[in-house]
């Protein structure tokens, strides 16, 4: 997979704003201290194109600080694309374009004041498939983000950070005696929790999760959900899931995405999770959350 391609083809209908080439230094300092405040993430009219084809139409959502927002909807409706727009991973796909604004506590991450790498430090991500770095040990995996940012900590603080993050991810008791083993030696569920610990170690203010449990068994899923509930107070969580029960269990807010045949994906309805599941205003939402389609 080519991640670094800069190729961008122009769509037939030009998007309102190209991804800007950001060169200015960051206005928001990278938070490395022990406490990072959860941030509010707002999007205004976010659209996305792949090779000139509109796949996501004007999504405006407000993800409140310290809350868990679930993005639900059938496959191919743009949930993952939307999630990847939130931390500038979308632009790594060849031929990808977007429009609209993504504001992290009022600062547009596409606005030119923030580098892509800095916005990704504030907005971490956990992927569908567990992807610990195979050439690094468990401990090095947790500290990878610091290494990439060239942040040097004294040995004692490093050890504390590793313990804190692995504890938060619910993995500490299982791996405390094998921190020097390679990340690949863990089971799938443990690897995913290691990835969560790794993402949390840079103290992000928002954590994006792209179907984090879809490759895991029910027990591991349970552990991850516990982890999500534990960290929810300290970081704003946005999770994409295909599992209705999971959305109901872990999220405070919910947004339902849908793409009609031949049409781009859009948000049908969003709001508090209880309302979305118990008393949705749109019949399509009701049908989807009750398993009548999708």
């Amino acid at each position: 997979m080519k991640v670094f391609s800069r190729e961008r083809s122009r769509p037939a209908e030009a998007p309102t704003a190209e991804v800007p080439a950001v060169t200015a230094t960051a206005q928001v300092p990278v938070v490395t201290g022990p406490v990072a405040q959860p941030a509010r993430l707002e999007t205004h009219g976010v659209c996305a194109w792949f090779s000139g084809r509109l796949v996501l139409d004007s999504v405006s959502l407000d993800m409140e600080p310290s809350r868990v927002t679930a993005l639900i909807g059938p496959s191919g409706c743009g949930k993952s694309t939307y999630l990847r727009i939130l931390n500038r991973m979308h632009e790594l796909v060849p031929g990808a374009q977007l429009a609209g604004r993504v504001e992290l506590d009022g600062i547009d991450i596409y606005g030119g004041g923030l580098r892509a790498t800095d916005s990704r430090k504030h907005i971490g991500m956990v992927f569908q498939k567990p992807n610990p770095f195979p050439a690094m040990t468990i401990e090095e995996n947790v500290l990878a983000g610091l290494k990439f940012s060239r942040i040097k900590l004294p040995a004692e603080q490093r050890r504390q950070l590793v313990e804190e993050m692995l504890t938060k991810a619910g993995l500490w008791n299982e791996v405390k005696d094998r921190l020097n083993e390679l990340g690949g030696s863990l089971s799938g569920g443990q690897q995913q929790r290691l990835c969560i610990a790794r993402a949390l170690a840079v103290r992000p203010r928002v954590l994006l999760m792209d179907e984090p449990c879809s490759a895991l068994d029910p027990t591991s899923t349970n552990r991850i959900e516990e982890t999500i509930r534990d960290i929810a107070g300290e970081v704003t969580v946005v999770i994409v899931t295909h599992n209705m029960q999971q959305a109901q269990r872990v999220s405070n807010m919910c947004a339902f995405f849908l793409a009609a045949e031949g049409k781009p994906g859009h948000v049908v309805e969003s709001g508090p999770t209880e309302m979305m599941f118990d008393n949705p205003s749109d019949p399509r939402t009701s049908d989807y959350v009750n398993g009548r389609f999708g």
Partner: protein
Amino acid sequence: MTRPVGVDDLLGAPIEVHPNGNSAVATAPVRSDESLSHVVLSGDVTRAGPISPPRRTRDFGAQGVALLAASALSAFAVVWVLFYQLTLLSGALGFLICWYACFLAVFWVVTVQVVDRSAATDRVATTLVASCAALVIGVLLYIVIWVVLKGVAHFSPGFLWRTLADYQPAEGTALFGKVGVGQAIVGTLEEVGLAALMAVPLAFLTAIFLNEVGGWGVRFVRTIVTAMSGVPSVVAGVFIYALFIVPHVLGYSGFAAAIALFVLMLPSVTRTSEEVLRVVPGGLREASLALGASEWRTVRQVVLPTARSGLITAVVLGVAIAAGETAPLIFTAFGNNDMNVNAFHGPQGALPLVLYQNIFQAQTVVVQLAFTAAFVLLMIVLILFVLARLLGRRSTRKGGLRKLAKAPFNWAKGLVS
């Protein structure tokens, strides 16, 4: 139940049971649904009898091996009669090929008779593939053993540092007490080392460009690299000769040879490293970027370490090829029987050149000298290969190179304290 549950049992499909019970195709007793549910659900298994010995369904078994041997023997007899007695053909190679073909045919027919058709096809295919592998390993071993046997007879440690300066073929085998290929070893190491020093960083950067950076130039660069790997080595030598040596930019020297070897190493190392980088999962790059790493950090700290052992193999392959190149050295290093440590001035020896210049000579002792040089060359490549394997091993990642590099400092620290 009588044996561990396998996929076959769970599929529940009726599968034919072969008479010998260990045919190459999967065998499993046909189970009713009751017995299946019993097998899956029971925690404490109640067995009807003792567990039968474990077996691998793909193994030939004693019977299969016996059939194999018998087929080989009978094919040998039949072909010997046909080949040497009835048709008066001759030639060992022809006999071997006919024997092998006949053996496969006999083996298939016999297995069809004794077991069944599908097992016969499977075993013949297995035999065919296994014998191809054996042939390749055999050829490799033959070359190595042959060179070692021919070369080791006159080898002595002194041969590694003495030079060919007092080279008097008339002395016979007493010659080996006086001469050596030290100057050629130094030459080969310097020439290949310089070439690697130039080629490896450039090749890695090119591979990173092709696979990680991308952009409009990729197709063009890849085409050029492919075209470069097609350049015959002798042409590379002539090219350097015409470009540097004829206009007296450089004299005959090890450095000129290194440039020619560089031209040959670059495409090989680039293509191999590109392939190695390509198999690094894209998910790792995404994970690194999502942590806020820049693209260069991602390449340096995630992609390259993950591809480490593959990249080392790429370098070793390039070095091994360059160490054995002869043609480009003829016009560049020129060869030298005296020791010349300075790679930048004056003709320099090289092991392939010693081999090339002596193997055609009439005197036996000179040919023996060439074989001893070949033995030394083979050993050098072998040692490089083993070293690279050791460096590339994951377990020595922490303790290997880094520890080795730090060792002198630690030792010095120990002295101070």
